[in-house]
């Protein structure tokens, strides 16, 4: 079976030739390939090369067209700071007050900031992998993008103090998300992930998520399906148990769970949805390959009866992770990676 066939089997809660394994590796791929992170973050060609070589090295089941979480806010007008070996950070937000929204334009993904580089990378990866291995695109959730457009503290206080203004900003953010995601699907992504860490119950209470964010995610996912997304992947890190019941209504086909969510809880709350997770990100830095393997085997055991599971980390595998630990994750799923010399 190909990676694509394994993913499709998991989406139907079936069992393929083995459990699909998808390490969430972004900057890690640059490090593994000996490429400066700054080059990976600037060039679609480099991103595609690093993603493809790393997948070839380990033999896992999907690649990501992902640079960092500042691509959208930069495209809208925020200024970023790039430094060696770090993801960029926002130095000047596109929105400093709610009134700024009126002068902002929706970005053109073919021209704005690094968006075209992401589209280029997706096109290259789709072309090389054809339909054998899924190519995953990623956009920020509207709430997370709103926090990236104006800073988290300011955004959250605005949500409480001026909910109408905040709703307008969220609406704008959701339009950016939709535009960029649709462009990624047209460029070559098979499926889209919404990455929305600001929606975690560790940041906002579940009713906040339900009232502000859920309607927007639902609409964005529907747009992605209309654009041909094979599946909608919802990724909210942290202790998401209280909001898991909303994942189905939102239109999620794959639900990411972090290490703070027990597999049996996820199985109970997400009966018809494929689940991925949930090794602790930091374990890829500090644990041994044996520990990664044992945790992975236990996880796969938890989902064995139902199927519909993708072995993965609960969040990004950090760039400074030990390659042997990624190898252990992949090996646990029964893959023989072809080691490069």
């Amino acid at each position, binding site marked *: 079976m190909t990676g694509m066939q394994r993913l499709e089997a998991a989406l139907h809660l079936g069992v393929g030739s083995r459990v699909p394994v998808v390490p969430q590796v972004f900057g890690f791929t640059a490090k593994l390939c000996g490429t400066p992170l700054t080059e990976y973050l600037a060039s679609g060609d480099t991103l595609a090369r690093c993603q493809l070589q790393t997948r070839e090295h380990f033999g896992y089941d999907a690649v990501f067209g992902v640079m960092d979480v500042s691509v959208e806010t930069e495209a809208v007008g925020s200024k970023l700071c790039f430094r060696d070996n770090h993801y960029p*950070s926002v130095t000047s937000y596109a929105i400093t007050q709610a009134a700024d929204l009126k002068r902002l334009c929706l970005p053109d993904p073919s021209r704005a900031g690094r968006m075209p580089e992401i589209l280029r990378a997706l096109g290259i990866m789709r072309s090389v992998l054809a339909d054998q291995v899924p190519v995953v695109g990623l956009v920020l959730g509207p709430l997370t993008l709103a926090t990236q457009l104006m800073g988290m503290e300011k955004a*959250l206080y605005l949500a409480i103090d001026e909910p109408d203004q905040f709703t307008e900003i969220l609406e704008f953010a959701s339009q950016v998300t939709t535009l960029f995601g649709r462009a990624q699907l047209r460029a070559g992504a098979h499926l889209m992930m919404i990455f929305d860490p600001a929606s975690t119950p*560790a*940041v*906002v209470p579940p009713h906040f998520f339900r009232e502000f964010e859920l309607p927007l995610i639902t609409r964005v996912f529907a747009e992605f399906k209309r654009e041909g997304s094979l599946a909608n992947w919802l990724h909210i890190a942290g202790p998401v148990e209280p909001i898991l019941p909303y994942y189905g209504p939102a239109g999620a086909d794959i639900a990411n769970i972090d290490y703070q969510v027990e597999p049996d809880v996820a199985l109970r709350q997400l009966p018809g949805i494929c689940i991925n997770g949930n090794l602790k990100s930091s*374990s890829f*830095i500090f644990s041994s390959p044996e520990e990664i393997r044992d945790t992975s085997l236990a996880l796969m055991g938890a989902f064995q009866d139902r199927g519909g599971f993708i072995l993965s980390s609960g969040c990004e595998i950090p*760039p400074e992770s030990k390659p042997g630990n990624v190898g252990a994750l992949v090996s646990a799923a029964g893959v023989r990676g072809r080691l490069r010399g």
Partner: protein
Amino acid sequence: MNLTDGKESLSHLIELLTAGDCGQVVREIQDLLAKGVLRETIIVDGIEKSLELLDAKCTVAEFNLLEIMLVGRAAMGAMKEIYPHDAASQPDRGAVVIATLEGDVHDIGKNIVKMILSWKGYRVVDCGKDCPLKLLLDAVEKEKPLAVFISGLITTVIPLVCQVKEALAARGLDDITVVAGGAALKQLSASQLRVDYVAEDAFSSLRFLESRAGAPT
């Protein structure tokens, strides 16, 4: 005003604080001060009580930044109303140096810890976000704090956090307690990060500090 009236008024203040209603809290403080309720009474039986309630409510399952931000903002508004001109008249239980280290610009967690420590009477020396290690060490050398608090949301700061104790020791500051917290750092143990304590949340960092300082929470 008699004691009963004061407690009833303070229970209303606690309700407003717990709801995070900053505007109403400020008006309530003005009203209490006008009625002659002592500043210390408002702080100990009102603001600190709301802090205790929030602490008790913030279990792992219910903790969320937004709620703490709102209560924190309301409490800071209350403190400004109580001490409008003379912040120095607030109790000083010792200094704490706090920072988000170089490479991490997410300071919301740091700011919340700062608010909570300030409530409790600690003088917080804030080295800001994206803080170079040298700047942190200089501040510790100058302030001789009870502890250093480091907040980290992203994993890329982990190597720098691991250097803090050793760098302090190199300056003869090996007796300074180092506390780490935040989404990235709390995934790890104190020994992995080479710090004295890893806090699950802002309140557990406070409890650890109070236990080290020998003060009641």
